[in-house]
């Protein structure tokens, strides 16, 4: 009983699996984006080299850095991994149970917030501005994110016998029935768009805009600290793909289906990355609040017609 559990947590679908697949997806994204831009791009294993490099370099801590400078990146990494353990990846999620989705939302938000807190603690105007932008972007997308997540939850509430607050249950429901994005397309599309903002991919890559803010919130970080911040991004990127599949894109009952669907989402993200320019933070705010209203339409629908399944 204990050994399988340990295997699940540490290997599959746990930490090792999450780490390896995240790095692979990050490498594939970079390679694909490069080919779309008519250039060669780095080898797919490049993120592995990057991580090794970051953790082997000297970490220079600024004298003026405030409390939390060392801690927040660690919090971010831990939160990202824990969130990953809560997402079903071709089976049930490792850490699941009643109310799982609430904890998942919390840990995902924590992994983002920790990175921005790191920016705040670096006492560098660029770091602080990047963190401010990051928090602003969170304010922007968290609302439509929550509104759209409520839709599958409430949809399953009317069923009975299903733990509607468990990500694995929603995943399982979709595997056996129908893609929730088909039933609630508005909420589904809004959810996917909020995920793009969550992982700061184009066109929502404003917080880390290095053309303007010299790296934004990670400006003062080097060595292991920088490595951890970058790992948070890489892990979160993969975790949200898994979340999209589990909540709206038909779920995944087996590993191959999971890989296929998340890979499809990766390709879409890559196309966005190559084609879109950076939106300004006020544009992003406007856009996401509009999306909150759009998702609200589906929310009203699902409340009024709970037996719509």
């Amino acid at each position, binding site marked *: 009983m204990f050994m399988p559990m340990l295997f699940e947590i540490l290997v599959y679908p746990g930490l090792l699996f999450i780490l390896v697949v995240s790095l692979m997806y990050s490498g594939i994204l970079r390679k694909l984006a490069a080919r*779309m*831009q*008519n*250039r060669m791009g780095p080898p797919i294993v490049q993120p592995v080299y990057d991580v090794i490099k970051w953790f082997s370099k000297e970490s220079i801590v600024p004298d003026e850095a405030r409390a939390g400078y060392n801690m927040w990146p660690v919090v971010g990494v831990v939160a990202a991994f824990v969130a990953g353990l809560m997402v079903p990846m071709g089976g049930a999620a490792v850490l699941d149970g009643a109310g799982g989705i609430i904890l998942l939302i919390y840990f995902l938000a924590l992994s983002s917030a920790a990175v921005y807190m790191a920016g705040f603690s670096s006492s560098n*105007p*660029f770091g602080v*501005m990047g963190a401010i932008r990051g928090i602003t972007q969170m304010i922007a997308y968290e609302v439509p994110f929550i509104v759209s997540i409520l839709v599958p939850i409430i949809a399953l509430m009317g069923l009975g016998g299903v733990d509607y607050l468990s990500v694995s249950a929603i995943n399982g429901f979709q595997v056996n029935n129908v893609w929730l994005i088909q039933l609630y397309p508005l909420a589904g599309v809004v959810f996917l768009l909020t995920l793009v903002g969550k992982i700061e991919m*184009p*066109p929502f*890559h*404003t917080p880390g*805009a*290095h*053309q*303007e803010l*010299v790296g934004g919130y990670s400006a003062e970080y080097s060595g292991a600290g920088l490595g951890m911040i970058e790992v948070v991004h890489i892990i979160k990127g993969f975790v949200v793909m898994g979340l999209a599949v589990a909540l709206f894109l038909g779920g995944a009952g087996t590993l191959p289906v999971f890989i296929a669907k998340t890979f499809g989402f990766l390709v879409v993200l890559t196309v966005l990355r*190559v*084609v*879109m*320019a*950076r*939106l*300004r*933070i*006020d*544009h992003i705010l406007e856009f996401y609040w509009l999306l909150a209203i759009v998702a609200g339409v589906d929310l009203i629908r699902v409340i009024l017609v709970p037996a719509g399944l």
Partner: protein
Amino acid sequence: MKKTTTIPIGPQHPALIEPEYLKVSVDGETIVDVDIQLGYIHRGIERLMQDRNYVQNIFVAERMCGICSGAHTVTYSMAVENLIGDVEVPLRAKYIRTIILELERLHSHLLWAGVAGYEIGIDTVFMSAWKDREYVMDLLEQISGNRVNYGMSTIGGVRRDVSSEIITKIEKVMDVVSKRADYYADVFLNDKVIVARTEGIGKLDRADAEKFSAVGPTLRACGFDYDIRKEGYAAYGDVEWEPVVAKNGDVQAKAIVRLGEVKVSASIIRQCVSKMPKGDIRVKVAPNVSENEAVARIEAPRGELFYYARSNGSDKPERVRIRTPTYSNILTLKPTLIGQQLADLPIIVAAIDPCFACTDRVALVDVNKGDEKVVDGSYFRKIDRG
């Protein structure tokens, strides 16, 4: 008074291609003041020129800037030709000078298009524009042997001829470049996110453009139909073309002007190669130049490039004064940045196509006497021993 934060943009900053220091005061994301401090690329070129003869100075002038090196050599050559007096530059040389100048404008504007894309976060435009630019760079390399610093113009003409094989290649590349210019203009006018980042941003109104003596595409984007090529230097009088003018004065207008100029340049080059006269490519001039002073100015990719030269009978100039286009345009940063969002600073700065290598001078203004002098190294050595 509301507390503002000062963000140092520079001297090293990913938004800038060359070092300068913009001390930007912000209130939240809004820029409330800009202090422009230059001087990081000052190399004492005007002083260097006083110690070298007229021919050597061609190559000193060339290295003022990598992107507009051709413009500098041609203007310098023209200034010295005006100093000497009755120098009949052969017609073929004038055509070759025009081709080099326009090829330079092409590569400069394509470079700019890429940089503009990069500044607003879409590096695909950067990759794409610089790939197209490579066709032009290949041409320049085949003509002159180098991608920058071509060493083509000299006093009295040009130093190398253009063969007929190269002429065929030129025609082919111009077709490609024209089509791509249409494509980029379409992108800058129609892509929703790019439009959101460039339309209405960094608007320079006509009054400010006049007040700050803006030049080049920055000026023409505010509705001024002013292009020095219309004065007919080199072979511009022999070919048919019109300046590109836009109305709004914002970043988008500047982009449209430059992309339009790419098409115009391609057309000028095509006309030049089709009408290319045969003949000599240079006339000989004497090394010593009698006492005189003269000016020359051309439309470099960034605007009016102005050379003043004074001779004293020897083979070295008494004084060369260079006023580059960015020197004028940089002043327009103040009205265009204040009131805008910090996020738009990179694209607004990039929109004047700044070339700080060309721009840095050290000028001492004596406010009591009201005169201004450009100092050289010995002055600093003197005050250092103070």
